[in-house]
């Protein structure tokens, strides 16, 4: 099965019942598969007039209590940024799949890239935090998309599935599990203030149409949900909570494969370049090479680095000019070597093996 199709199947298995989207290469197969399947599950597929409208419709649908998603690439992702900030401040669960392609601008529509890793984290204005997953196989397109809905409902944040053209378009074996784990959205207790959170910092969800009479606004709001846009303390408390509810859970939700924790030289990867690293580890006879493969990229859990106590060097191959390498570097005093790659082709395992010889 193709990666993009597996992504749609994972969403359906997770109970996604609304897809609003706009065709864009190389993500279109996700929308096409949802258009085919959603009507048969009692769900809704709607092709909107652009990506701004797509994410808007997804957010609107989410407020009726359904699991909702969209999928896009490059230019479409850029168009979604403002409304993603709206989803953040209104704490609207939604899943956004980005099948990354080469940018900036129209760039390379049919070629893979990982150039939106910082955009998904910082692309909307203001301070906030979100969750991003990065699948490295067709199987993970299914599994991580399904998991994205759980994380989104649990934390009430947009969750990004940051895939790329290689993983999205390649076909390989998919084993469909009988069921996928499902964590439901916590509902607001009647009588509680709609934006007052408990210890987990996530308020209960007041689904539209259930008598909550909730006012939801993109303005800074108090715990009643009422606009309160000029109070410094209300704004500070709100934004701090929006960030903390995600960041304080970063170790708890971190998800990564760790290979050879005693290694001196450790590759760190996510998404398609992981496959090149896996090939290097498979082919090498050396036993001092490790691999940290991030499945959950944001929030970046720096504690993962200390799982390699003997590491002297981290090598970070990415299909960009070193976006996550920069994040990793700020959490460690070890040497971090970015291995940037642009143009759409994957790092060649023999090149990475050659680099390994140079490093140590």
């Amino acid at each position, binding site marked *: 099965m193709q990666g993009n199709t597996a992504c749609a199947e994972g969403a359906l298995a997770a109970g996604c019942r609304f897809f609003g989207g706009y065709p864009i290469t190389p993500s279109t197969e996700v929308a096409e598969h949802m258009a085919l399947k959603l009507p048969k599950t009692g769900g809704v597929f709607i092709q909107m007039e652009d990506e701004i409208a797509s994410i808007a419709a997804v957010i609107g649908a989410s407020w009726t209590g359904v699991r909702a998603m969209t999928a896009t690439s490059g230019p479409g992702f850029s168009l979604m940024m403002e409304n993603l900030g709206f989803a953040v401040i209104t704490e609207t669960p939604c899943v956004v799949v980005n099948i990354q392609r080469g940018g900036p601008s129209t760039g390379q529509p*049919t070629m893979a890239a990982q150039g939106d890793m910082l955009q998904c984290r910082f692309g909307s204005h203001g301070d906030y935090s979100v969750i991003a997953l990065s699948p490295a196989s067709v199987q993970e397109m299914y599994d991580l998309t399904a998991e994205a809905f759980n994380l989104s409902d649990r934390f009430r944040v947009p969750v990004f599935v940051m895939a790329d053209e*290689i993983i999205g*378009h390649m*076909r*390989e074996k998919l084993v469909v599990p009988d069921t996928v784990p499902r964590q439901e959205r916590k509902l607001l207790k009647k009588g509680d203030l709609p934006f007052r959170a408990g210890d987990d910092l996530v308020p209960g969800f007041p689904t539209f149409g259930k008598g909550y009479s909730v006012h939801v606004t993109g303005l800074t709001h108090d715990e009643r949900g009422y606009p309160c846009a000029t109070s410094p303390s209300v704004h500070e408390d709100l934004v701090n909570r929006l960030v903390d509810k995600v960041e304080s859970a970063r170790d708890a939700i971190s998800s990564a494969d760790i290979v050879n924790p005693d290694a001196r030289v450790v590759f760190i990867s996510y998404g*398609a370049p992981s496959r090149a690293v896996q*090939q290097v580890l498979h082919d090498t006879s050396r036993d001092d090479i490790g691999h940290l493969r991030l499945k959950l990229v944001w929030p970046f859990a720096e504690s993962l680095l200390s799982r390699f106590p003997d590491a002297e060097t981290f090598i970070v191959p990415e299909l960009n000019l070193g976006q996550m390498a920069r994040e990793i570097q700020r959490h460690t005093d070890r040497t971090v070597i970015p291995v940037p790659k642009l143009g759409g082709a994957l790092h*060649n*395992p023999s090149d990475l093996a050659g680099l390994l010889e140079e490093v140590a």
Partner: protein
Amino acid sequence: MRTEIRFSGFGGQGIILAAVIVGRAAVMYDNKHAVQTQVYGPEARGGASMSAVIIDDEPVLFPKVTSPDIYVIMSQEGFEKYGVSVTEGAVMLLDSTLVHSRPACRYIEIPATREARESLGRDIVANIIMLGALVAATGVVSREAIEKAILDSVPRGTEELNLRAMKKGFELAEQVKHG
């Protein structure tokens, strides 16, 4: 053992489908692992189209073809773009109706488009003839597996035509082997 196969031709010949069918045969019916990839251009028809499939007994790690063991080439432009850089140990099946160059490696000439047109009456099944020839010449997947995978993949009502094309491919490859 890892086997890398690259397919090339012009858009509309079913180059991508051919790779998908081989991958499906390996995974679903031969209990192997496979990854299929392709190059996307802006054209929906024409141009030089390329797809690839990697088959292995263990999980396929690196998903891209680096040095193909087997080429299936169905157009001259495809040959020039994706078939000239062969290594000596590779083998190429080429559609001799449409490709007039010959590679610097072992090659097998299959007049697939001519046979599709003349024996089967439909150009469109030339890719399936090539698949039959590929399987008969290299054994990269089993004959039973490729037959099932073809039946899974072709439009309803065309099963018989496609199976005839596959068998025609078997025959043509056997003739070359024994001829």
